[in-house]
């Protein structure tokens, strides 16, 4: 009896230790962001580090003024549109690919590793390869063409893996039942398959959106004459760093968090409905 309580106490200690460590870990991964968030409200004469010299919205106002950071609104809009297109392609391609991979087909191994290569090849390599190629051929790069292309190459493996996991747990008998009752392929897909895999499709889309929205390396040489938001952030870093940058970072992070929350909500609703 006494040994049992001692064992229990020991386990409680271990659990407390791990919990404390986990909190420290969270501070480690979120701490810098929170400091940046606080410093974006730095007073007018304050600098890029603590102490705060008063609290103001001065740097946030500077952010909205068009003169200070270039074409910020335009960059944000382009990043957003690009992320949405990448999201659509990622969801579509990963769904189609994972459906094909339910059966064995010649060349499936090669295709699998090619998709995965998108994850492995460093962004700078693809940027360089495509940018020099376009230069040789004489096609100007643009965010909606060349950057879009390599973004999808980067996000596709994530969506693909998600959809492969979805189809791993998928009960094909439901489709067969629908087929036996005379439904054609499109009807089977629309009425049976899609509603069941939709949460996965949304998750694949989330990867497409967020990874593209934040992507920098793959866009550097391929965006053409107009910047996306990460490029703008990078450009403003080459100048003197001011709290405006923190305001911009905070705004962008909050936007990312809102998008993630939105996706999680949609996912939860669809997941409940699919069950």
């Amino acid at each position, binding site marked *: 009896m006494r040994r049992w309580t001692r064992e229990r106490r020991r386990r409680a200690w271990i659990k407390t230790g791990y919990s404390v460590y986990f909190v420290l870990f969270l501070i480690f991964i979120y*701490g810098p*962001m929170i400091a940046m968030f606080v410093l974006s409200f730095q007073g007018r004469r304050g600098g890029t580090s603590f102490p705060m010299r008063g609290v103001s919205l001065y740097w946030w106002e500077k952010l909205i003024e068009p003169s200070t950071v270039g074409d910020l609104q335009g960059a944000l809009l382009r990043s957003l549109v690009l992320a949405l297109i990448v999201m659509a392609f990622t969801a579509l391609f990963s769904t189609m*690919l994972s459906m094909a991979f339910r059966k064995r087909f010649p060349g499936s191994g090669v295709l699998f590793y090619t998709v995965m290569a998108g994850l492995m090849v460093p962004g700078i390599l*693809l940027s360089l390869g495509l940018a020099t190629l376009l230069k040789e051929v004489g096609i100007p790069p643009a965010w909606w063409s060349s950057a879009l292309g390599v973004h999808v190459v980067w996000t596709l493996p994530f969506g693909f893996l998600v959809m492969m996991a979805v189809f791993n747990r998928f009960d094909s008998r439901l489709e067969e039942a629908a087929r036996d009752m005379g439904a054609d392929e499109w009807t089977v897909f629309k009425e049976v398959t899609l509603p069941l895999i939709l949460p996965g499709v949304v998750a694949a889309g989330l990867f497409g959106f967020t990874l593209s929205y934040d992507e920098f*390396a793959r866009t550097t040489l391929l965006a053409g004459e107009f910047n996306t938001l990460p490029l703008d952030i990078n450009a403003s870093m080459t100048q003197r760093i001011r709290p405006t940058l923190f305001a911009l970072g905070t705004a962008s992070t909050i936007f990312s968090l809102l998008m993630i929350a939105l996706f*999680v909500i949609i996912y939860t609703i669809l997941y409940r409905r699919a069950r």
Partner: protein
Amino acid sequence: MVDQVVNGHHGGLIGSQPTPPTTAGEAKQFRREAGFPTGWLIAPAAIWLIVFLVIPLISIVVFSFWTSSGYGMEPDLTLHHYGEYFHNQGFFIPGDDNFLRPSVFIRSLGSTFYFALVVMVLCLVIGYPIAYFLAMQVKSFKWQLALFLLCMVPFWTSYLIRAVAWIPMLGRRGLFNKMLMGLDIIDKPIGILLYSEFGYTMALVQLYVVLCVGPIFFSLAKIDQAILEAARDMGASIFQIFREIIGPLSLPGVAIGMIFIFVMIMGEFATAVVVYGGKTSTTGTVILNYYAIANYPFAAVNALMLMLSMMIGVVVILKIVDIRKEL
């Protein structure tokens, strides 16, 4: 096709007993009917990958043999840039005192490699207990999911901004110096935090640690609790359980996490500029610099060497751990 179906399904007089496909053609027909045609499903993505992944990679290889004309390239088949890569400032210069001194480019590749290794080890040491805590200590599934998502959220936010966020932490008047002074460890602010190896490593670990928490968590969560219970009942100590069961079973997750981090850091260049002040030259920054001065073939050679060393690294990790079980 109609003939076959009719023949197959109405062969007998008694009812319409479906007969199993007999000829190869019929079997193929049967298989093709289930699901959309594979060709149409894979064609769009395959074409996309060829245009935006395969062709750029091939063109890097091709361009690395071309000559640089100062403002562009000319088709050629020369090893000039490879020579320069290995030769520049050292390496096999006969007569030189230390003729085995690696070239600047190999050294920058080496330092990139070194940072990748250090960060991988740190991420593993810091991240493993987190994954272990989530998978083994948190019992309720809801809490597990919530805490796991909390760990993964930073992955979905901009790493450029997360790198920027280190500036107020590490600066001369940054939070770290404040903290150290508050704890009486130092009495004067130290300047080695930002724009230093220490700050750079720290930022990289923070940026990439979540990449190894995820896979390790998944492989730990798959371990059957009954095995652990059995081991405990038979009197195994915590260390024995870890060495004999948990450790080996989580290895695939560790390998995947390490591959992720390794690949990301080898291609890294933005953090180096932000947190390290561009003082170091990672291979990524070298490539960009040569692109900027329009020496594309040399940028291509650097990129290929980066790719090669990455592939070697990944193969080594895969040789140590067989992750095929995981996929």
